């Protein structure tokens, strides 16, 4: 079984500052990694994903994440945040085999609040 730990439950930041949301995972097999975002009163939407290849993954809205296998981490970064980035962010993992049917294990979520 796999698990995901998001190390910060809340991250306050000023507009135009950089931000990093931290995610660590645990798994005995190869995994795929994801970041999802949930804006207020909406469902989740995919920000970015790591399946294989380059460990630096770029997503939508200027976000990127780096897969670090030795540290079992997949931290999310953005060099300059906007007010509109205020949302809850979820890190998720699934095993890379086809028998998982795509089911994801999610972290606890990090609420990013961007202040003017």
């Amino acid at each position, binding site marked *: 079984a796999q698990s*995901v730990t*998001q190390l910060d*439950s809340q991250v306050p930041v000023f507009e135009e500052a950089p931000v990093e949301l931290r995610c660590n995972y645990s798994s005995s097999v190869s995994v*795929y990694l994801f970041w*999802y975002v949930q804006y207020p*009163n*909406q*469902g*989740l*939407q*995919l920000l970015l*994903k790591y*399946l294989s290849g380059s460990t630096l993954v770029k997503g939508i809205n200027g976000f990127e994440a780096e897969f670090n296998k030795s540290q079992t981490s997949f931290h999310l970064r953005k060099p300059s945040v906007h007010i509109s980035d205020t949302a809850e962010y*979820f890190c*998720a993992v*699934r095993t890379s085999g*086809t*028998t*998982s*049917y*795509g*089911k*994801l*294990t*999610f*972290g*606890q*979520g990090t609420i990013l609040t961007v202040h003017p």
Partner: protein
Amino acid sequence: DVKVTQSSRYLVKRTGEKVFLECVQDMDHENMFWYRQDPGLGLRLIYFSYDVKMKEKGDIPEGYSVSREKKERFSLILESASTNQTSMYLCASSPGTGGEKLFFGSGTQLSVL
């Protein structure tokens, strides 16, 4: 775009009632999922289905059951609602066994009084 529709945005029920949460997707996806979202706990998988009439338990199936009679529709059933089932319920779908991306509905906020 894929659309996953949950029938109710808000639902209020009494303890002991039988509750049905409905979810419909319009992209012929094989896989469908029910998650529960609670503050500080993230999303936890209740049940999922990889084909019509096929279902598997997730991490927290106790107190819930599911039904998938048609490919596009996946229902979550609370046999006898309890206050600890007050939560946000999210339905999702994904195509095939690759299933790299989940498409989520907007959620149903269920309050059990």
